[in-house]
């Protein structure tokens, strides 16, 4: 049954109807849910039981790595090629602070954005959902809920009827 389908895609008119539908789908036992919205909808992640993202930790580690790289690089460079500038210290931490700060931010920002894309599975050129008839409206003013075909409760007819009952304005089977 589920071999040829990616899932059942339902269209809603507003974030509120989408959120109601998500709540009812959870109550009906559906677990493989994903929602698609033109802008981030507050509270949706709680209803979908999405885990808290760990991007902040990535940023912290990236920043620490960046700062350490900068400090080690500047110390090594002065160790390998020592220049006495008016008797000032070779390992001048206060002078190294600027480049340390910059690389902390550079590594932190790039690692967060990179990991965000990687965890999201982006970039990718195609996705089964792009084949859906009305899915292009997910970037405009429609709100979509997809119940995955891999879900234990998934059944083409029953899921489709269920989605219509919870207020979907259109329901479509998305082929794999």
């Amino acid at each position, binding site marked *: 049954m589920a071999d040829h389908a990616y899932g059942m895609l339902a269209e809603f008119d507003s974030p509120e109807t989408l959120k109601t539908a998500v709540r009812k789908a959870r109550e009906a036992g559906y677990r493989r849910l994903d929602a*698609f919205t*033109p802008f981030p909808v507050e509270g949706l992640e709680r209803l979908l039981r999405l885990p808290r993202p760990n991007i902040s930790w990535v940023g912290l580690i990236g920043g620490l790595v960046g700062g350490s790289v900068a400090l080690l690089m500047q110390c090594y460079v002065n160790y390998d090629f020592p220049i006495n500038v008016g008797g000032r210290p070779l390992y001048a931490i206060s002078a190294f602070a600027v480049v340390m700060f910059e690389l902390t931010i550079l590594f932190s920002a790039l690692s967060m954005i990179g990991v965000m894309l990687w965890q999201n599975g982006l970039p990718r050129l195609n996705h089964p959902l792009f084949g859906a008839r009305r899915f292009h409206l*997910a*970037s405009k003013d429609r709100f979509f809920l997809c119940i995955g075909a891999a879900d234990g409760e998934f059944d083409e007819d029953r899921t489709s009827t269920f989605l219509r009952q919870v207020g979907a304005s259109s329901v479509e089977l998305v082929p794999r």
Partner: protein
Amino acid sequence: MTDRSADILPVNQSIGGVSDQLTGIPLHFPAERRWLIAMLFASLLLLLFLVSVVELFTRGVGIWGINIPVNWAFAIHNYVWWLGIGHAGTLISALLLLTQSEWRNSLNRFAETMTLFAVVCAGIYPVLHLGRPWYLYWMFPYPATMEVWPQFRSPLEWDIWAVLTYLTVSLAFWYTGLIPDLAAARDRATKRGWQIFFGITSLGWRGSAAHWLRWSQAYRLTAGLAVPLVVSVHSEVSLLFAAGQIPGWHSTIFPPYFVLGAAFSGFAVVSIIAISLRSWFGLNNLVTDDHLDLLGMVLLATGLMTAYGYVFEVFDALYSGDAHELQTLTDRLTGAYAWTYWGAIAFNFIPLQALWWRSVRRTGWSLMLISIAVAIGMWLERYMILVTSLYRDFLVSSWSKFTPTFWDWSTYFGTIGLFLVPFLIAIRVIPLISIFETEELLHAEEEETHG
């Protein structure tokens, strides 16, 4: 600011309508003729830049008016000016995102785009000033056969790290914020070329709730990093001066003075761009008079803070009692370049006072004229800081003068082309106002009125 932002956008517009309007600007460009005329003008300036650079690389920096002791003039002066303009873009999009000032949503995209190209214009100047720009790679720590390394205890070495980091992080932040809008443009595109262009650049974004969640976290945290980055970059630029011993430069007031001046000039240029784009593309429903009002207030506030910097610079010199500092102060107020000092004060702070009136802030042309005055005034201020300190330093035997040559001016006007050409291309091909953030704000406002 929340009570004000609750109705910054007129609520009588639909989310879908705004999306169509904004994706329509690249997809069905509405102002083809005006764009072509602007592009022609910008291309001529860019051509002037290319000619100036070829001349410079052929004959060397001697074609400029620089000499010893005024060995830093237009190149570094315009570098500071351009970089300062760029900073407002980051402040608008990052600082106001963190303070949840929703009025930023209509301005942040083109302000960030402005940042990118302003930083490019700034970054090119020290390279041109190198004299032998093909040795630029000496700035990077690589295992050279000569067994030397760059000197990290010098502000000149910090500079390249600061500017390149700023450029990279600005680009990454700008692009991350752009991905959902590129996806919106992809979904509205009907021509094959646009579908491929937006299909590839939007990286396959489909607005999944899980994606939004990670995206929001990464975007907000990057914004949180971008704010101290702006402060650090322009502080570092000021250290190029303040770490030297030249009277008029060697002062602890410099980092905050430079950062505030940067924000001041940058917000002026953001206002110029906002007013031009709004009348160009008929965006009065998104860039409203309320936005201009707020921009005017920010401009006034940063202007007064910059004025405070002027006062303290004078106080600093007087309080130090140092003969050379006092000499430089006198040179600034009454010397050969006194016109730059008084010009800066006249252009920066006198028209600015009109912004105390609400009707002046809310009128496009008056805010535009004041902003242009500020851009000129800040340009004169950078000129003043560079030249008045250098032309008379400690030894009378090394005193000299600086007069900009034709090639100084042509390179400077050329960089305006270097800024405008990519900026015009950008507003032609990407959504110039953030679509999803506008939609989000409209939705929140509708909730408030109905619910």
